[in-house]
């Protein structure tokens, strides 16, 4: 299994009486892509933070590729995240003052890959595959269009060859044309590399890219009464 959640419960320490997550059981097989939709405030971001190991649940087990994130020491969890999990946000995916190449390189520095020259080749290939023209590689990220930024974000998320990609509303700041182009690129990159994908969005029109579509309300028992 790529993801295996068992009896996961979570609340923020500031609000001890308000449980945000209560997931009895949820799994994602390796290589599968799942679309999760749900209203904002339904514990979406919290779930993704738990999956990426930024948050540790109060109870329950979080296994990613068979590794228990909830039992890892901090350092190993940071390392694990850098090596195995890619993440694409709705926006602010890039350090605004670094250029595309540096943004991607930075991500690779936190993972355990050291061969910089080979890496630069990888980055350039990825960027080319993602339709970023070479003239934009050296511009600071904030000078790129939102569509370009989101595509560079995919490259950044994929540079460490993660087995799991988490996408948090990656298309909501894109116009319809860019949205379709982005989805097509993302899905092809993911299936080419056999990456498991958790894609969260409230935009149900995107669900046709996925075989598996789930509602957060069904996964998370707390979602009904936020």
């Amino acid at each position, binding site marked *: 299994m790529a993801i295996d959640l068992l009896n996961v419960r979570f609340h*923020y320490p500031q609000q001890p009486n308000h449980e945000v997550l209560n997931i009895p059981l949820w799994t994602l097989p390796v290589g599968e892509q799942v679309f999760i939709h749900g209203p904002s405030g339904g514990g979406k*971001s*919290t779930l993704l*933070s738990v999956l*990426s190991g*930024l*948050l540790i649940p109060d109870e329950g087990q979080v296994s990613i590729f068979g590794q228990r994130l909830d039992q890892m020491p*901090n*350092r190993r969890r*940071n*390392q694990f*995240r*850098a*090596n195995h999990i890619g*993440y694409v*946000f709705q926006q*602010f*995916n*890039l*350090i*605004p*003052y*670094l250029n595309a190449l*540096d943004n991607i*390189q*930075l*991500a690779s*520095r*936190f*993972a355990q890959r050291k061969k910089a020259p080979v890496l630069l080749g990888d980055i350039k290939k990825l960027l080319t595959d993602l339709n970023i023209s070479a003239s934009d590689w050296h511009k600071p990220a904030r000078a790129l269009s939102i569509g370009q930024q989101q595509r560079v974000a995919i490259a*950044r998320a994929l540079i460490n060859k993660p087995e799991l990609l988490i996408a948090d509303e990656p298309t909501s700041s894109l116009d319809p044309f860019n949205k379709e182009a982005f989805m097509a690129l993302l899905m092809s990159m993911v299936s080419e590399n056999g990456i498991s994908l958790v894609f969260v969005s409230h935009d149900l029109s995107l669900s046709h890219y996925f075989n598996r579509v789930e509602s957060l309300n069904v996964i998370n028992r707390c979602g009904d009464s936020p």
Partner: protein
Amino acid sequence: MFAKLALQSLLDRKGSVVLSLMAMTVSIFVLLGVEHIRHQTKENFSNTVSGVDLVVGARTGSLNLLLYSIFRIGAPTNNISWETYEAIASNAKVKWAVPLSLGDSHKGFRVLGTTGDYFDYFSYANQQHLNFAKGQAFHQVFDVVLGAQVAKKLGYQLGDKLALAHGIAATSFSLHDDRPFTVVGILAPTGTPVDQTLHVSLQGLEAIHIDWQQGVKMPGSTITQAELEKAKLQPKSVTALILGLESKMTTFRVQRAINQYKQEPLLAILPGVALSELWQMMGVIENTLLLVSALVFIAACLGVSAMLLSSIRERQHEIQLLRVIGAPAYFLFFLIELEALFIALLSCVLGAGLLSVCLVFLQNYLLGHFGLHIGSNFLTGNNLSLMLAVICASVLVAIIPALSGYRQARIVKR
């Protein structure tokens, strides 16, 4: 890569970074400058006289005696008689005794009446003797030897004639213009008060005062050159003496003997001891200056920290992003520290650069106006360790924003 991240992040916030950088640069400039000048002044002061075992004058404070005899600051209280000079000079333990006579001036520069021995025995810094840049010591009654600064500032050459003024004010109304002196020698620069002194023979001083009474020229009294030559130009008193002893071991014994001299109240001081007393007095001012510049520096450090602290708020997304791509929380701590370090390093370079430029331009001014010889090489071990302390301090103060960055990194956005 991480250094690049820190640098780019600083570049991204140019406005506030440049301002904090300037504050830091100015504070480091002030700190290094004060420390350097403090050091150099101290060296200057202790270089003023060497090889003189005792300074003897009329009974007064030891600092006062030192100031008017060696530094030519202030006015002598009283003179000592010629007989006393002869008595001391003939003491078996005294190797040499040079009389000093002060009280006249030339365009604000003090005139020192002495004997030819002065040029042989007086030394400064590391037992360096006075050297003549041009000409030689005085031999005639109306010969004068100029200090380096006097010649330079007033543009005198060998053979020029000049009139001395009575008293020590810069503009004097009573000139000894009836008996001009001829420049016969110009001394090489020493960086001591010698540079600002005109040296004449005791006989010369005697000659220009011969028809004066109570400090005023007597009207109608004209003495011809012939009469002057005939007159006995023997001074009745001098202002002070500098002594060299046969053996350093006898210094205190000779000092005590002079202090207990029956015929006249005298004071003998060891110039080194008096210098360090003088320096202790200056120490208060010097420490105050250093304290103020340290406070300015701390203020600049806090400014940098405040700038970094407020930047953390606007960098929340960035911090979150770094965490997601696998940066540990402590990475943020070091990133902020690195930014503070860069600012401190760059400020050190800029501050030091600014100081060396200023020193190059101010060197002549300080030498000319204050007789301070300030070297432009301030990168001494002392100042380097000061710079190191500065960098350490700014890194220490940056712990505040760095911790805030660390805490920010631990918080997961909802």
